[in-house]
């Protein structure tokens, strides 16, 4: 019985960990979508 419960928690933790990690990845990526990286943010005009 105890072994079954601990196994179940392990399985749940393993899935939960994956989901938490995915949430972190997505938070980083959606923040990135709002940033200016990729194009320099300053405007240069020397004329």
């Amino acid at each position, binding site marked *: 019985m105890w072994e079954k419960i601990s196994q179940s928690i*392990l399985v749940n*933790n*393993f*899935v939960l*960990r*994956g*989901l938490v*990690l*995915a949430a*972190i*990845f*997505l938070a980083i*990526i959606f923040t*990135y*979508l709002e940033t200016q*990286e*990729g*194009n*320099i*943010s*300053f*405007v*240069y*005009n*020397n*004329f």
Partner: protein
Amino acid sequence: MVRKIASYLGSLLIAILVTVGVLSAYSHWLDQQLALLEHKRVVLDNGNRTKDQGLYLLQRSVRQGDFILVGTSELSSPVPQNPKNIFPNQELSLPINMVGRAYKQSLLDGIMLGAIPASDNTKMAMVVSMQWFFGGDIDKKGTQSNFSEIQYYAFMHNDAIPTESKQYASERLAKLLSGEGQVGAACLYAKLHSSDNVINVLGRSVLYPFYEGKYQLLLLKDKYNAYKFLRDAEEIDYEVKNLDWQQEQSKATAMGKEKCTNNSLYVYDEYYDKYIVQDWEKLEDDMSKEKLLDSKETDDYKFFLNMAVINNYKPYMIFMSANGWYYDYRGITKNTRYKLYDWLEHETTAKGFSYLDTRAYEYEPYFYCDVMHLGWKGWLYVGENISKHFGK
């Protein structure tokens, strides 16, 4: 122990699968939203970074057959004859998309063309300035501020572009982007693709997943930015102007006369006061050593022409001369300037493209509004010639 490692790897796999799944669903949703906005007519002025340094909005213009006008700072000339007010007209009735800002020159324009193949009916004109050839090489800061990472990666992903051209662009970018942290990843990518030595090949293999992932994220970001822009931009009426070119020239002369009153160079008063009058003595012959044709811009221009050929563009090239009185004074003689115009015409003709030569107007009052930018009469003349060229 093994079980623990397997558990952590499993978590990572789940995280990756969920992330990729959510992003794919989001990308699909953006595609649907963009499809709904496909025919929304909006202003496509130059200087819009989402457009000029992105992919989606330029591809949209190519797909829809807009008239694409590529240039630099003259696109922002403060005259009513600015192309945004001349197009569409009775002879060229397509919506206009103006692309470019100061310092976006042949190298970056060539990369842009290499990233976005033309369609069968793409109509594109490009204004080339004499100032691009000053100083031996192009402006580093200016190039950095106009550089588009997504266009560069798309260019490098285009199988139609020969390896030598990719190496040429990468070698130039590796040098021009160096020292600027915001484009550090692209600079390293450029270095790794500038030649095929062992270290570069190895570096490319190791970093392939990173750059491929970054490219995919930039594509998603580009779609997201385009969606936001199209969603929020005001919808405009599509008005085709009916212009009497001769009558407009008379109006342009009158406008120029009104704006240029305090100098004999025929530049508008505010410009003369701000940029010329206080340095006038120092400017005499200060550019007499300028050769123009020694500039690396000449190789970049050849690169641009090659990219146009490879990606099926047939650009109409506008060779913008300059204010003759001003550059005579600074020591860039008519002879030096004409050598450049001759060279541009030779290279352009060799690729089978048409061009507009404006050297005859270097001493025409009000053709330029300042020392280098097309003005009241200049933009009208260029606009008329573009219209007639594509309206044939």
